């Protein structure tokens, strides 16, 4: 067992293989305050990757309602319950055990195995509200709301220390050096299902038709061409941006993902305490229950929400949020100048330029020339 550096936990963790960070690490940032669970991402992924036989109930990207929803059923509750106490120290270091550290001697990773039926209700719990009964109405004038729910879009996190990779006895899972995307070798997998058990986020899935397991491929053919994944470019709410994240000791302030995660610290990994260094990051919802958010996003969630509320006063951060969803191509660098946010590709070529504040045009309610009332319906 090796000791590897996990910056999300502020300490070294155990892992079956040595630390070997890729040259670039694929990452997505999601702004959960903007997600409306339209499932366009889910369908963009499904029509691209999982429309074949044995993939009928397979969603590499899904959006679930928190806290009650889960695909597969209660995936989060069941692994958290198994892991036991997950305490954090005063300096943000994790005091509990990770899934690898908590594994019994007979296993490589602490896990639970979802049953077949657990995958059959991909949108269970949709829009179910937590906090209290809503029969008598509720008050949403103050933050956080006393009655709350939020939408959590999820892909594979292409973890730095993937549990699926650790658990595969055939070494059929590998992490690409060029972009950190984690793939199941479709020629070597024999369908033992060890990755399906081991991934706590449940993003390895079994195909009973091909009898091998499959997972989110990070849209690697697009990424190789400098294009963001399908779930990102099809997001109508423009809540996502895909890019490459550096570890904090190599973070660059002009890298969009580094800026949101490391510089502004408004985007956080989910369930970092599981110890895998997942690489999807969430801007937490400002209205949801703080206790729940601390469990999901760790001890820095209150600071992240406070920083998010201040974004309007920060033109650089506001500009970056305007760049999200404004280009299909992968932004390696961005800058904000003269009221415009500009994204660049790896070669430094400009990809997109957007105003940080949209121009506002005011027109009279009645058009004298046409003799018609103006309204906003396109």
């Amino acid at each position: 067992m090796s000791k590897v550096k996990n910056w999300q936990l502020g300490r070294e963790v155990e892992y079956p293989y040595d630390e070997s960070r890729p040259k670039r690490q694929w990452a997505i940032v999601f702004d959960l305050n903007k997600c409306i669970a339209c499932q366009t991402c889910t369908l963009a992924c499904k029509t691209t990757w999982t429309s074949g036989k044995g993939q009928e109930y397979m969603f590499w990207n899904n959006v679930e309602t928190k806290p009650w929803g889960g695909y597969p059923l209660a995936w989060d509750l069941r692994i958290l319950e198994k892991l036991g106490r997950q305490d954090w120290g005063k300096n943000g270091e994790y005091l509990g055990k990770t899934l690898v550290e908590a594994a019994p001697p007979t296993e490589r990773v602490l896990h639970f195995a979802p049953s077949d039926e657990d995958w059959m209700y991909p949108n269970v719990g949709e829009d179910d509200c937590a906090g209290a009964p809503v029969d008598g109405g509720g008050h949403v004038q103050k933050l956080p709301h006393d009655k709350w729910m939020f939408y959590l879009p999820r892909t594979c996190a292409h973890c730095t220390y993937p549990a699926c990779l650790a658990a595969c006895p055939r070494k059929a899972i590998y992490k690409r050096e060029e972009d950190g995307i984690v793939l199941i070798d479709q020629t070597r997998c024999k369908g033992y299902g060890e990755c399906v058990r081991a991934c706590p986020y449940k993003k390895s899935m079994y195909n009973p038709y091909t009898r091998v397991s499959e997972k989110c491929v990070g849209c690697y053919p697009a990424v190789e061409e400098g294009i963001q994944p399908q779930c990102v470019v099809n997001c109508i709410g423009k809540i996502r941006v895909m890019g490459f994240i550096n570890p904090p000791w190599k973070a660059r302030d002009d890298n969009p993902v580094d800026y949101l995660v490391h510089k502004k610290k408004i985007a956080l990994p989910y369930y970092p305490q599981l110890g895998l260094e997942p690489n999807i990051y969430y801007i937490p919802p400002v209205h949801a229950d703080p206790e729940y958010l601390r469990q999901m996003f760790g001890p820095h969630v209150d600071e992240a929400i406070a920083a998010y509320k201040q974004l309007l006063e920060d033109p650089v951060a506001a500009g970056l949020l305007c760049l999200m969803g404004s280009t299909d191509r992968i932004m390696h660098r961005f800058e904000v100048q003269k009221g415009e946010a500009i994204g660049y590709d790896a070669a430094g070529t400009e990809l997109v330029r957007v105003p940080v504040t949209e121009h506002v045009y005011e027109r009279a309610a009645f058009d004298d020339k046409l003799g018609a009332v103006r309204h906003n319906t396109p």
Partner: protein
Amino acid sequence: MSHLKLALLLVSNLALAAVPVGCSDKPAKPPPLKELLVKKVTADLSKAEPGAAYWRDAGGGEVTLIAQPMIAPRPEKVTTSSLLVQAVHDGKQVAFRLRWKDPERSEAGRLGEFSDALALEFPLADGPLPPVMMGAPGMPVHLFHWRAQYQRDKEKGKPAVADLYPNMSIDMYPLEFKGAKGGTEAEAEAFSPGRAAGNPQAYSKTGVDEIVAEGFSTSSVMEGHGSQAHGDWKDGEWSLVIVRPLAIEGGSTLKPGQKGNIAFAVWQGGQGEVGSRKSLTMVWTPVSVQ
């Protein structure tokens, strides 16, 4: 317990133990297998037949298995502790009959369902014996891996999704919806990654896979050499025959009048055993070919 009762219990146990085996209705407990004698028979071994008459006098014995102890994931306790082994040959083919207790027949199919299975292991080449568990780099082993799932493929064809999930609902598959002209086989397979990649697991099996390995995590399916297998499950027991050529060019070879080695592994699919979750023999069993 009083001393008297204890004494009576001991006496009664001794009395039971003293009953000659031949007087019991049950077959005699087979001897532990120190060396597997492969008897020469004149029967036709081209078909795998667990009920064939020649097995009656084939000899053989019992080998002890333990839960795979070396690498995780591994079982917490042994599920198949004993395996009855017999072997015969006809000068060209060698047949092994293997019997073990398994309370349920498991053939896999849906997520979380695993198949009953057995593997025979031989050193792939002459020379120093490879480590019994999957060999080592430069010391390959040659495996014959039977699964009940593969046998079902052979007998009934590889199950379609509708066989596994009769109530499953799907609007349409690519290229297969009403009015679609369909596509070439290659175009259809693009929607099934395992098949498109040519993974043998994604195609119909013939009952037994031949596998080569040079250490943990290295096993790969190799080109077969016409091995056959057939298993019958009845009353909580599998009775399986695997037939393979005595000599395999570029593979493990057994020669009449000479010695060899064999090892065994068993999986109980109903207990969730698959891959490294298995029962196995910890030492090579010597083989003597008549």
